[in-house]
C-alpha cells in the first residue's frame, strides 16, 4: 500500500448543459507532488480545478482529498475550501481592502484566528515573498505580478494542504511572469502539493513531477516531464506540443 494520495479523482464527469467538459477524469496526486495540466484552451483544465475546489459540482464520479470524499452528499463545502487554496488567472484581490486585510480576512473570519496572530502570519508570508513593504497598499496600486503574488499569499495564509493554480500567469505582462513563477517554484521546493493548469511549457517542464495532457475532457497522456516533452506517445500530444514549439513557447 502506498501512502494515502493527497488528491484522488475517479471517473469525474462534468457537463454544462449539452456541453460535456470533463468526460471521465482519473487522477491521483501524491503528497508533495507537483502535477501540471497542459492542453489547449477548453480542454477542461480550469473546470477540473474548479471541481476539486467545489466551485463547480461534478455530475458523477468522486473527488477524494486526503482520504475524505469531498463530493459525497452532505459535505460542508466551506470546510473543504479552507483546506484547498486556489489562485485564479485574474487575481481577484478585494479592491477595498489593504494587502494585509486581503490576506488576513479568511484566516480571521473562516478559521477564527485572532487578529494579531493572523497579521503576524501574513507579514511573515509577505516578507518571504518580498512584499512586506506593500502590506498597507491597496491592490490597484500594485503591478499585476505583485497582485498575483499577493493572491498566492492570500491562499497560503489558510495553510492549505493542496494548492490549485489556474493559469496564474496568463493575465500578466511577459516581464512580470518570472516573479510569479519564482514564488511557485519556492512552494514546490518546500513540498507544497500542487495541481497547476498552465500554458507555460518551460515552467511546467521545470517544476512538475508529472505532466498530464488534457484533450476534450480526458487525460490522454501523463508522465514525467522529460518523457512527455521529448517522447510523447499520443499523436494528439505530439500535435499540441508541435504547435506550442511553433509558437515559440517552448
Amino acid at each position, binding site marked *: 500500500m502506498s501512502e494515502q494520495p493527497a488528491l484522488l479523482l475517479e471517473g469525474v464527469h462534468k457537463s454544462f448543459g449539452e456541453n460535456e467538459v470533463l468526460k471521465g477524469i482519473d487522477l491521483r496526486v501524491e503528497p508533495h507532488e507537483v502535477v501540471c495540466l497542459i492542453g489547449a484552451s477548453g480542454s477542461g483544465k480550469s473546470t477540473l480545478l474548479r471541481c476539486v475546489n467545489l466551485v463547480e459540482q461534478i455530475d458523477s464520479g468522486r473527488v477524494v482529498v486526503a482520504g475524505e470524499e469531498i463530493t459525497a452528499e452532505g459535505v460542508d463545502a466551506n470546510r473543504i*475550501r479552507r483546506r484547498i487554496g486556489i489562485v*485564479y488567472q485574474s487575481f481577484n484581490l*478585494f*479592491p477595498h481592502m489593504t494587502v494585509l486585510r486581503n490576506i488576513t480576512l479568511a484566516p480571521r473570519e*473562516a478559521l477564527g484566528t485572532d487578529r494579531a496572530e493572523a497579521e503576524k502570519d501574513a507579514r511573515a508570508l509577505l516578507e518571504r515573498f518580498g512584499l512586506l513593504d506593500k502590506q498597507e497598499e*491597496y491592490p490597484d496600486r500594485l503591478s499585476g505580478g505583485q497582485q498575483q503574488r499577493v493572491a498566492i499569499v*492570500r491562499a497560503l495564509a489558510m495553510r492549505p494542504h493542496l494548492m490549485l493554480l489556474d493559469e496564474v500567469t496568463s493575465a500578466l505582462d511577459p516581464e512580470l511572469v518570472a516573479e510569479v513563477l519564482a514564488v511557485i517554484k519556492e512552494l514546490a521546493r518546500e513540498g507544497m502539493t500542487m495541481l497547476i493548469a498552465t500554458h507555460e511549457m518551460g515552467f511546467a517542464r521545470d517544476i512538475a513531477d508529472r505532466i498530464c495532457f488534457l484533450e476534450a475532457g480526458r487525460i490522454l497522456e501523463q508522465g514525467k516531464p522529460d518523457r512527455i516533452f521529448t517522447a510523447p506517445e499520443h499523436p494528439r500530444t505530439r500535435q499540441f506540443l508541435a504547435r506550442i514549439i511553433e509558437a515559440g513557447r517552448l
Partner: protein
Amino acid sequence: MLFFAIIAVVVVLAPGSGVVAERFFSPQHLWQSLVGSEGEPSVLGAFLLNVKIFMVSEVFILILALIIAVVRGIPGPVFFPFRLVAVAYTDLFRGVPLILVLYMIGFGVPGLGLGFVSYLPDVTYGVISLVLVYSAYVAEVYRAGIESVHESQNAAARSLGLTRWQSLRFVVLPQAIRRVIPPLLNDFIGLQKDTALVSVLGSIEAARAAQIYSASQFNYASYVVAALLFVLITIPLARFTDRLIARDKRRREAGGLA
C-alpha cells in the same frame, strides 16, 4: 446660469413684478415668517421637525432597504417565498404615491384600535410611511450596487472558505455600498423634500408653518423662506457626498494610511 438669468429678467420685467416682489420677497415678511410671531409658528422652528423626520427616517430606510435587497438576492428554492415577499414589497411601495401611503397609515392605523400602536403621534405615522416608501427605492439602489460587484469577487471569497454571508458582508456589500453612495444621496434629497408631505397628517413642519403664515398674513414670503431652508440643507449634503467619493478615490489611488 443663462437659464436663471432669463427667469430673473422675466420676473423683474413682468407687469405684476411689483406685486410679486411685495407678496413673495418683502424683507419684513421674510424675516417675520422665519422667526415666527405670536399668531404664527416660526418656519425655521418648524423646519427642525423636517430635519428630525429626515434623520430618523434615513436610519430606518438604510437598514430596511438593505435587508430587502439582501433577501432578494438569496439564491436557492428554499428562499423563494422570501424573495417573493421582497419583490412584492418593492413593487407595491414604489407604485403607490407617498401621499396615499401617508393617508392610509396616518388615518388607517389609528382607526384599527391596536392599543398603543394606534395612539402614536402623527409624526410617527409620517416617519413610518416615509420609511415604507423610500425603503422600496433604496432597496433597488442597493441591489444595483450588489449586482455591479463582479461575480469573481464572490468566487474568490468563497474559494477561501468564507460562507455566503461572510462573502456578502466583507467583500460584496462594502464595494456595493461605496458605488451607490451618489444615487443613495439623490434619494435622500428626495426624502428631505418629501418630509413636507407629512403635514397632511397635521404635523406642523416647515411647509405647513409657511401655509399658516400665508393664510393669516396674505403674504407668500413664508413659502420662499421654507424653500430656501430646504435648499440650504441640501447643499451641504451634496458636498459631503462629493467629499466621501473623493476621499475614497484618493485613498485607493494613494494607497496606505488615509
